[in-house]
């Protein structure tokens, strides 16, 4: 059972374009929604995160949009650069005594120069 569904699996964007990755979740108990970025040969690293009481969060060129009623959230990368080429994972976390995080399947982004 996939609790966090992510799309697309892969994405090719021109330099300067907007990259959009979408995620949907099922469990309304999730209360933290992070995005992780992973470069080849490295572990994932936190990129940006949002709490469900906020509809949008922006950090530089990266924006999370959050729709609580639809149980969906998305990552927008503005002015995409070749250095943004990586795999992106959305995730959802909840406190079960410890903090449990469930990840989406990942999106491989390639930004063409």
């Amino acid at each position, binding site marked *: 059972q996939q609790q966090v569904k992510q799309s697309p699996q892969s994405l090719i964007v021109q330099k300067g374009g907007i990259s959009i990755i979408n995620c949907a979740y099922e469990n309304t108990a999730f209360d933290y929604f992070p995005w992780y970025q992973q470069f080849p040969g490295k572990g*994932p690293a936190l990129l940006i995160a949002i709490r469900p009481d906020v509809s949008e969060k922006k950090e530089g060129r990266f924006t999370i949009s959050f729709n609580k009623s639809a149980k969906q959230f998305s990552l927008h990368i503005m002015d995409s650069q070749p250095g943004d080429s990586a795999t992106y994972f959305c995730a959802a976390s909840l406190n079960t005594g*410890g903090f449990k*995080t469930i*990840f989406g*399947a990942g999106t491989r982004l390639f930004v063409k120069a």
Partner: protein
Amino acid sequence: DVKVTQSSRYLVKRTGEKVFLECVQDMDHENMFWYRQDPGLGLRLIYFSYDVKMKEKGDIPEGYSVSREKKERFSLILESASTNQTSMYLCASSPGAGGTFEAFFGQGTRLTVV
């Protein structure tokens, strides 16, 4: 600087062997996690621990066990390795209550079972 260290980058083991993957964090984090990463499946949670000697099953615990005898160390054990356990294994840690949910990952161990 935050650091999660996995003992091996690459491992090759034979079917039926008992395999130990070690992870150490230096951030005094309460929570530690083991994930496996497979193409098209993302990161799937195997086990996690929110305190010393405490453990909880994740989504795919079958064939695995864990040990957390000290706060900084979390070990993943493959009791009898099988070829379908060939994968990238990622360890992570995060602060406890009062901290953030942010998970800090090691660089991963690529395990091949032959």
